[in-house]
């Protein structure tokens, strides 16, 4: 019996390892290939992304992890020689950072409102937020477009930032966190004569510090990779974020694409490595729609 259990666990371990390799493969491939010279990339992937640059092209595609020679050539040509990618990266920052900060700030105030006062109206409103949160972009983009058009914001960053600020996801998640703060804590502060704003900033916010962090990471990752909104609301190629622009790199520059994708991954990677525990906690707490 014991032996059987042991083999069972070994099997599970191997299965996990297999999955882990499959899950990691694309990430590792992107990073290692970004250090390959263009000639090596062409040799490896020339069959897929037909290039005109000539040189040796292997007959079959070569999925290779370790570059023959580590070079920063791709990074140099992407970041130093032409300002295009840096500009698009900056576009992403200008779009995503205001959305994340404002969305989380507004959500904190709103979630406090939903936590401190409850009633029929409040629960109806909260349910409305949940429904809104669950709507696919294709539904919300039409209203967003109409408003942006009315306000003359099409082709400006604000057409994406303004609706993003009020996206209900963080309200939903933060409310669930705040409802767990012991009521006695708030009551005690009230007895001591603290006003609502003071209770909010001095008691409530410090209590959800980790929640705020995890929501920030989640929202950042989501918006950092946005495609739908810029496609519809930003027709101007110059103001596109890197998430959309990366896919326009023409097929002759695959090495460059790997390098720029790696650059684009860095902010997410840092947030992920630094705050994985928070991220996991954040996800875990988004776990049920009710309550």
């Amino acid at each position, binding site marked *: 019996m014991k032996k059987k259990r042991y083999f069972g666990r070994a099997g599970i371990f191997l299965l996990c390892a297999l999955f882990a390799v499959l899950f990691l493969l694309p990430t590792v491939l992107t990073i290692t290939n970004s250090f390959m010279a263009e000639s090596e990339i062409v040799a490896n992937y020339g069959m897929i992304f037909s290039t005109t640059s000539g040189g040796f092209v292997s007959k079959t595609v070569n999925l290779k992890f370790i570059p023959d020679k580590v070079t920063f050539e791709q990074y140099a040509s992407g970041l130093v020689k032409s300002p295009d990618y840096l500009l698009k990266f900056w576009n992403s920052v200008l779009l995503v950072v205001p959305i994340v900060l404002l969305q989380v700030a507004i959500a904190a105030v709103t979630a406090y409102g939903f936590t401190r006062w409850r009633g029929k109206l409040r629960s109806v409103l909260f349910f409305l937020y949940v429904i809104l949160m669950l709507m696919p972009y294709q539904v919300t983009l039409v209203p967003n477009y109409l408003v942006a058009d009315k306000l003359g914001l099409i082709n400006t960053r604000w057409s994406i930032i303004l609706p993003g600020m009020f996206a209900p996801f963080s309200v939903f998640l933060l409310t669930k966190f705040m409802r767990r703060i012991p009521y006695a804590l708030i009551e005690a502060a009230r007895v001591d004569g603290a006003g609502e704003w003071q209770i909010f900033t001095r008691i409530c916010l410090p209590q959800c510090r980790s929640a705020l962090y995890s929501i920030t990471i989640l929202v950042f990752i989501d918006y950092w990779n946005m495609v739908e909104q810029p496609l519809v609301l930003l027709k101007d190629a110059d103001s596109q974020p890197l998430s959309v622009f*990366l896919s326009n790199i023409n097929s002759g520059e695959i090495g460059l694409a790997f390098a720029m994708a790696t650059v684009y991954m860095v902010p997410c990677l840092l947030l992920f490595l630094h705050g994985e525990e928070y991220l996991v906690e954040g996800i875990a707490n988004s776990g049920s729609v009710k309550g």
Partner: protein
Amino acid sequence: MKKLSGKLNERGKDRLLGLCFLSPSLLGVGVFFIIPFGVVIYYSLIDGVGSRNFVFLENFGKLFRNSAFLLAGRNTLSFSFAAVPLAVVLSLLLALMLEARIPLKSQFRTFFLSPMMVPVASIVLIWQVLFNMNGTVNEFLAVFGADKIDWLQSQYAQIVVLLLFLWKNLGYDMILFMAGLANIPRELLEMADVEGASEAYKFFSIKLRYLSPTILFVMILSLINSFKIFREVYLLAGAYPYETLYTLQHFMNNTFDSLDYQKLSAAAVIMAIVMVVIIALLFKAEDWFGKDVEG
């Protein structure tokens, strides 16, 4: 008496204060989502933004005779129909596997979660390397004597996208299930052990019951994410991909280009209605399934 009225006033003031906290968000949600959605409903019922004659359901009728819309609707349904159950089952499986006492557990969790942060464009690049006519998958299959196919231009295109969807979303869903599993009262499982219950009984009668809210949530989330896979498909195959990959999102996106407000509005209203119906059904199912667990 005086005290009572004082209390009442305080309650009124309290309410007002509560609304103050909600008002910025309510204002924003109203201006950017609710009111314009009302306009969308209005647009879906008139014949043109210029003439503004009420035609009621004519726009919807036209939509249901539009072959592109029907194709897109069918594809979206069939994709979600496959993607949602697979995501639920596989991510639950991953979570259960990580419950076993195996080494490197937290590393595995990190690895499974890592696809979350990979930029869309680099995913697209890798998927091309794998599934291109001359790609790695074909090369691998050639060892077994299979013919080369251009995966994204074939009847298997949806499967390729399905793999992409699962790869991207399983980690997130797994975390949800891990949290759900951790919330099952230990005593219950121990008691079952003492009474000699089988693993299967423990899984189906205890764990699954307690997991029903999580299952509901993962289903809803997967449904939304199955719509979001448009990102990758669009970047892989453009605005007009292989027939089975043409989804409602493509339809909407292409309609945005022509700015046909009536068509757009009617499609958005239909999608909203379908979503609300599905969500309501899922809620009902969860109420029924997990009724003696909660509370």
